[in-house]
């Protein structure tokens, strides 16, 4: 469990990035921080592994104040995945994945063997192990990034817009992969995005942020969708625009779902056919 207690962060230049933020992030669940650019998401995330220290307030992991922990050791025990993967360009895929275990003193052979099996875990072919990151596609690089984040078998996985820079098809694939992984591994995931669809897809708990890391609403995706706390949340989730209020139109022999703007949202299928499609939100 991660607990923020009245956490604020003012940068030396005077920017108040986070203003009195309090939140509990339950263990073994995915909490998604969502908000527009500059709302303090990255700052919040980086306070968990002490890349940024709060100006005031405390953060506890399982009851221990992290201000008392040694930052480098703390970071080595927490997985971190970022946009553009952040892989080391001068290390091969396998060495990138093995980076943190090697820093922690795991013998090279053992670290590499485990790194290879992590490639399997994230759905990468082992033949890519000897490549350098710039020989991979963006989607493959992100998978390597996730494998690296998992390499020390951390309880906590921090993900900062990890799928922000890949095309929609690959992104959808990576999202499904993360859902599958999470159902197997049950990490405490903190996921940052500005894509509300992604937040609703991945989050057990979704936190909608205004500027200065001020919480507009916290809740499960269905809570937020059903009862947006205010106009800000409503417009953020698109509820007021009727984006999510769909009606059926009969077109070309199929029932098509259409939103109030007239955009096509999908096709209505019979329940039996719907059962056949994979359930994204399988029990965890």
């Amino acid at each position, binding site marked *: 469990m991660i607990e923020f207690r009245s956490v604020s962060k003012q940068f030396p230049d005077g920017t108040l990035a986070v203003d009195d933020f309090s939140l509990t992030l339950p263990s073994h669940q995915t909490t998604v921080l969502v908000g527009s650019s500059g709302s303090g998401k990255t700052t919040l995330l980086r306070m968990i592994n002490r*890349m940024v220290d709060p100006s005031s307030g405390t953060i506890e992991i399982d009851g221990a104040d992290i201000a008392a922990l040694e930052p480098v050791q703390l970071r080595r025990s927490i997985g971190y995945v970022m946009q553009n993967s952040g892989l080391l360009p001068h290390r091969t895929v396998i060495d990138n994945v093995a980076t943190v275990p090697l*820093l922690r003193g795991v013998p090279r052979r053992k670290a590499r063997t485990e790194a290879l099996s992590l490639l399997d875990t994230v759905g990468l072919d082992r033949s890519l192990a000897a490549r350098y990151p710039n020989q991979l596609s963006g989607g493959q690089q992100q998978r390597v990034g996730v494998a690296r984040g998992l390499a020390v078998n951390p309880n906590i996985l921090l993900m900062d817009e990890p799928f922000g820079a890949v095309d929609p098809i690959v992104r959808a694939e990576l999202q499904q992969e993360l859902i599958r992984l999470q159902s197997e591994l049950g990490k405490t995931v903190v996921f940052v995005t500005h894509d509300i669809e992604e937040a609703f897809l991945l989050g057990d708990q979704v936190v909608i942020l205004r500027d200065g890391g001020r919480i507009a609403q916290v809740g499960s995706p269905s809570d937020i969708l059903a009862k947006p706390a205010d106009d800000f949340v409503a417009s953020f989730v698109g509820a007021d625009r009727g984006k999510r209020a769909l009606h059926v139109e009969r077109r070309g022999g199929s029932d098509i779902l259409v939103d109030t703007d007239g955009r096509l949202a999908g096709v209505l299928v019979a329940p039996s056919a719907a059962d056949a499609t994979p359930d994204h939100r399988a029990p965890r």
Partner: protein
Amino acid sequence: MTWIWSNLDLLWDRTLDHLVLSVPPLLLSFLFAVPLGWVANRYRISRGVILTASGLLYAIPSLPLFFVIPAVVGTSLRSPLNLIIALTLYGVALMVRVVADGLASVDKDVRQSAVAVGYSGWSIFWQVELPLAAPVLLAGLRVVAVSTVSLATVGAVIGAQSLGSLFTDGFQRGIQAEIIAGIVLTVVLALLLDGALVLLGRILLPWTRLASTSRRALRAARVTEVSE
């Protein structure tokens, strides 16, 4: 030509002398430039001071320097050490800026992610920043290598034996072949050192070789990803 054939030993000796004069300054200037360049890159104030100072250093004409160094360091006026020190100073002057620029060229995201996964201060420098700056450092070292080899010929004027001695001696004794041999050997030596550095780069920096092939690899990677 006959002069050359009958003086091969002399040519070889001068070439070795020249190497002994130019390789140590090359290594030393790298060793001194790395910490100076690090400091220059680290703080805004030191950047201005160090880079300006090294620029001025390079502007000092070499002949006066040969008289200043013995006075300051206490070497004898005709010691080859003077030349090695002078060449090191010029090398440092060139390399400091290269090191500062090379370190500044390291991708911020990569640095941040190294911090995020738990690299400590020094290990970031040795294992991330320095290797990633290496292609820039190598380019700088190649310039220093060539300029050092060519500057080392000046040593002849202050009595340090080098390939430059072949020009001075050739002029005094009117042996054209000796002058030409001196020039050609200087150029060849510069090219060889440069080639050695390129080779070293290929061995030590394997990931930089991929720049040209990576695009094709990327396309292949996309295809496999889609077909999976």
